[in-house]
């Protein structure tokens, strides 16, 4: 069952007895680089917000990278599994490792770049921390924590400026009155992790030279309101050159704006190329010889 494009082919794959279902996009030319794994976010199925996971997968495959997009059990096109006793991060890790093993057994790759939006960003973080096969993670709206400066920026100007205080109050009033009665279902079970644990996790990643690409969108303003807040959140972590951070103040969380979508997807593609290239270079560099 294979869909054939000019530069890539796509096939469905199933992993496990209660299968995880997904799509493997492969370049026409054989590829030795890492496989890029795009995770599904919350309840959105594997095509991603505004079909972004599909377009990124195909773009990367046309540049020579194997990519995978799939649904975690119970989401989208993957049936539920009876593993209610296992914690959310553990489920994510186990299912991702099943997918990794499948890719390895197929002889496709043994290294991975993993990422996605929101809970997918969390999933990429969790697997990256525990699995050495992960050489890079990309995160859109990952775990965020308020800092002292966040509070200063959020509340201090209003106290000083009566007009701003009135505007703020008016906005609150308006948003409260325009709430929809629509019966909908959203994933508010995004697993919360203490800041200290996230900080330790990033340090583990950086110590292992795992590349990290982060986007924070403006819609996270309840948690995040200035560009370098990410660095303040994790002061203890020396990200060095391993972090590529991008604050997209004008982007919605769902990336509904065409310009923002274009920026984020282009950046991910360029980051994948750079990360995969650097990794190959590191592996092929001759070991320095000690001359007595």
């Amino acid at each position, binding site marked *: *069952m*294979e*869909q*054939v*494009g000019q530069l890539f082919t*796509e*096939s*469905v794959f*199933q992993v496990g007895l209660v*299968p995880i*279902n997904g*799509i493997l996009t492969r370049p026409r030319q054989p590829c030795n680089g890492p496989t890029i794994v795009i995770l599904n976010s*919350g*309840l*959105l*199925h*594997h*095509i991603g*917000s*505004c*079909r972004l996971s*599909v*377009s990124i997968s195909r773009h990367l495959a046309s540049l020579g990278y194997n990519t995978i997009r799939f649904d975690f059990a119970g989401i*989208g*096109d*993957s*049936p539920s599994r009876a593993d209610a006793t296992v914690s959310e991060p553990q489920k994510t890790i186990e299912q991702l490792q099943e997918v990794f093993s499948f890719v390895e057994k197929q002889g496709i790759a043994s290294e991975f770049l993993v990422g996605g939006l*929101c809970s997918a960003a969390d999933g990429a973080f969790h697997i990256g921390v525990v699995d050495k096969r992960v050489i890079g993670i990309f995160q859109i709206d990952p775990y965020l924590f308020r800092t002292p400066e966040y509070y200063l920026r959020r509340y201090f100007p209003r106290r000083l400026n009566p007009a701003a205080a009135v505007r703020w109050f008016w906005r609150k009033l308006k948003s409260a009155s325009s709430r*929809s*009665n*629509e*019966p*909908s*279902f*959203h*994933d508010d079970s995004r697993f919360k992790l203490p800041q200290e644990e996230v900080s330790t996790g990033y340090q583990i990643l950086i110590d292992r030279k795992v590349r990290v690409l982060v986007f924070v969108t403006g*819609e996270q303003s309840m948690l995040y309101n200035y560009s370098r807040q990410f660095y303040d959140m994790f002061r203890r972590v020396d990200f060095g050159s391993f972090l590529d951070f991008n604050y997209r103040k*004008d982007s*919605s*969380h*769902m*990336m*509904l*704006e*065409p*310009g*923002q*979508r274009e920026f984020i997807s282009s950046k991910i593609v360029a980051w994948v190329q750079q990360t995969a290239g650097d990794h190959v270079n590191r592996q092929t560099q001759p070991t320095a010889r000690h001359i007595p």
Partner: protein
Amino acid sequence: MEPLFFGTDKRLYGVLHTPPQGICNQAVLICPPVGQEYLRLHRSLVWLSGMLAEKGIGVLRFDYRGTGDSAGVLEKVVADEWLEDGEEAFEELHEQFGSVPKSVIGIRLGALVAAHCSTAQAVERLLLWEACQSGAEFLAELKDDMLTRLLPECNFESNDGTIHHNGFVYSDKLQRSLRSNTILQNEIQRLKTKELLLLDRKIPDKPLIAADASSLNISQHICQVDFSWLDVDVIGSAIIPQKALDNIVKLMS
């Protein structure tokens, strides 16, 4: 749930839901809506397919070209290609489930594809859930919505006539081809179905039941559910209109 690529060059993505008992007494093709409506309804369509399969009905749901996992990009497709996709999906349904009676469900813009399927093949039942009666009606809804929504960066019409609505792009070419689709307004007599079931939340202002459709067995069903197809919230919450899903299962079985 069995995902597959099918059709010409395997360009269409679909998912089969086979009855767990193994006995399939009927088969249904689901023609989904498009854009943000499809993204938000996807979870419901998975549930609906599972519920139908439990009743012994085999289901194929699929993505049109330029949508979901099917080939192509939305910017480059035209509505006629979606009609072809509907035909190919119906053929696949036949291939997968054999000679059992077949029905088609069309949702919103998907109603036009479903109706087209039932002009080429005789179908047992054609169920249209909140059907857009024409491509022009769908586009008018998008444009109305753009005027009321306070997100000009996401919802606008560019100089070349392309409509950007909630993260999805409807090119001028696609719009023109959609406008020419009036099957449910002017050609309803072409439908080859034993039963046409219309599911809406209220009696439509312009009912489909036209004088020239008297030969069709049409029934209108009302199911009051409170949600908006065109909305999209901060985190892309799913639409789960359980009452409507239950109604569809009842009508189809």
